[in-house]
C-alpha cells in the first residue's frame, strides 16, 4: 500500500534526523549461531545415545565439552552486546518476567548448570548413568533455551518479519542442523555407516525444511504486512540479496546435495564438507534475517 501512496503523492522526506543504524548486529548473530551448536549437540547426543548406546559411548565427553564451549560463547556474546555490560547482574536481581531476555537468561543459567554437572559426573566421577540421566533433563531444558530467542524476536513488535511460529521452527531446525554438523565433525570415522546415515539425514532434512521455510516466507510473507514487503526488498534485489542467497546456498543447498551424494557413495568425507558448509552458511543466513528488518525507518 505504501508504494502506491508514494507513487500517488510523490511524498519525499526532505528534513529529518539520522536514523539509528543496525542495533543488533554480528554479535547477536554470533549469539544465535553459538547457541544453535550448544543446544543442538545435546539434542543429537541424546538421540544417538538412546538409539545406538553400544556404539556411541565415546561421544559423551566431546558432546558436553562442545555444548559447554558454545553455550559460554553464546553467553559471552550476549553480555558484550550490552551497552552497559557490567550491569548484566540486574537481570537476576531486578528481573522482569514478561521479558524473554530475562526468561532466556534464567533458562540458559539452568542449562549451563546441567551441562556442567554432566561434565562433572562424567569426568570426575566416571558416572555415565548419572550423565545420561542429566542428559535427559538437559534435552528438556535445551528446547526452551533454543526457542527463547524466537520469543524475543516476536516481542520485537517493531520487526514484523519475525513471527513466533516461523522463528521458533527455524531456531529448532538451526539447532538440529548445527548439532548434527558438529557431531559429524567430532565423530571422525568412529561412527558406523548406519549412524553416519542417520546424521546425514538429520542434516539434510533440517537443511531442506529450513530452506523451504525461508522460501515460503520470501513468497508469502509480503502478503501479510507492508513492513514485511519493505524488509524483504533488501533481499529481493536490495543490498542484502547476494548475502541472503549466499547463505541459502551454503547453509542449505550445498549440504543437501552433499548429503545425497555422501549417502549414495557412502562417503564420510563429503559429509564433513556438508557439515562445515552448513555451519558457515547458518551464520550468514541468520545474520541477514537479523539485519534486514532493522534497516526500515520506524517513524
Amino acid at each position, binding site marked *: 500500500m505504501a508504494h502506491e501512496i508514494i507513487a500517488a503523492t510523490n511524498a519525499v522526506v526532505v528534513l*529529518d534526523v539520522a536514523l539509528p543504524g543496525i542495533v543488533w548486529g554480528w*554479535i547477536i548473530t554470533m549469539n544465535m549461531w553459538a547457541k544453535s551448536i550448544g543446544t543442538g549437540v545435546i539434542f543429537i547426543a541424546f538421540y544417538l545415545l538412546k538409539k545406538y548406546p553400544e556404539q556411541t559411548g565415546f561421544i559423551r565427553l566431546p558432546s558436553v565439552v562442545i555444548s559447554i564451549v558454545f553455550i559460554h560463547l553464546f553467553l559471552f556474546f550476549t553480555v558484550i552486546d550490552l551497552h552497559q555490560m557490567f550491569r548484566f547482574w540486574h537481570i537476576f536481581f531486578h528481573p522482569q518476567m514478561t521479558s524473554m531476555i530475562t526468561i532466556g537468561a534464567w533458562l540458559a543459567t539452568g542449562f549451563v548448570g546441567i551441562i556442567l554437572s554432566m561434565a562433572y559426573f562424567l569426568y570426575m566421577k566416571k558416572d555415565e548413568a548419572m550423565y545420561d540421566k542429566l542428559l535427559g533433563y538437559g534435552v528438556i531444558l535445551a528446547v526452551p533455551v533454543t526457542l527463547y530467542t524466537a520469543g524475543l524476536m516476536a516481542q520485537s513488535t517493531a520487526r514484523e518479519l519475525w513471527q513466533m511460529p516461523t522463528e521458533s521452527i527455524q531456531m529448532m531446525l538451526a539447532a538440529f542442523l548445527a548439532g548434527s554438523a558438529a557431531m559429524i565433525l567430532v565423530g571422525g570415522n568412529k561412527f558406523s555407516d548406519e549412524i553416519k546415515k542417520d546424521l546425514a539425514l538429520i542434516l539434510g532434512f533440517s537443511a531442506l525444511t529450513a530452506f523451504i521455510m525461508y522460501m515460503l516466507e520470501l513468497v508469502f510473507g509480503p502478503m501479510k504486512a507492508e513492513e514485511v514487503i519493505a524488509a524483504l526488498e533488501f533481499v529481493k534485489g536490495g543490498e542484502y540479496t547476494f548475502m541472503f542467497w549466499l547463505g541459502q546456498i551454503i547453509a542449505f543447498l550445498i549440504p543437501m546435495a552433499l548429503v545425497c551424494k555422501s549417502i549414495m557413495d557412502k562417503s564420510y568425507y563429503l559429509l564433513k564438507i556438508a557439515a562445515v558448509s552448513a555451519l558457515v552458511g547458518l551464520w550468514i543466513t541468520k545474520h541477514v534475517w537479523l539485519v534486514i528488518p532493522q534497516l526500515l525507518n520506524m517513524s
Partner: protein
Amino acid sequence: MQLGFLVDLRLCMGCKGCEIACKVENEVPLSTWRLRVKYVDVGSFPETKRTFTPLRCNHCANAPCARICPVSALHYIENGIVNIDKERCIGCAGCMMACPYGAIYIDPVTQTADKCTYCAHRVASAMMPSCVVACPVEANIFGDLDDPMSNISKYIQEHQSNVQVRKPEKGTDPHHFYVGGGNVTLNPLASFRAEGHSLFNNLTHLPVGGHH
C-alpha cells in the same frame, strides 16, 4: 490519571521550537533526539505542499518497550507516563527493537536507553512539558485523558472524526494523538527517504554502539 499528548498537524509550522526546547530541557546529547519534527514534501511542482510531523514517544498503554525490558528500566508511573530508569538500564537495546515508532535511542553519553518522558520531572512539579511551552501556535496539547474537562479531552471530542494515532494495527494503544494527520505524515513507509544531503542536513543512518 492518564496523561496524553495531541498534536494538531494543521497548526504545526515546522519551527522546531519544540525540538530545541526538549534538547535543552533534557540535555539530549548531539546526534540523538527525544522529539523531532520531520518534514515531508508532497506532490509535484507546482502543486506541492510541505508537511511537518512532530514525533516522540507515544507512551502506549500496551507498551512493547516496557514488556521487553528485562530489568523494568522502562516502567509506568502512576500518571500513565512510560518512564525510564537509566541507572537500572543494561543497554540491551531490546526496547529499540520493540518500539514500532523508533522513539527510543541509546544515549551516547550514558550508554543506556533514553526517550521522551513527557518531561515527567516537570509534570511532577505541575509544569507543562517543555515542548508544549515552546510551541508558538499551541499545536502541542497535553493533559489528562481521564478528565473530560481537560484541554486534550475537549480537543479530542471536538475533532473526533479527525483524530488518529500512529500504527494502530500494532495494538500498542498509544496515548499520543494527531489531528489532521494522514498516511504521508504518520506512516513512515508512505514517503520516500533517500540517503544523502537534503534540505538542511544529511539524511543518513547512525552507527549504534559500533556493533555492525
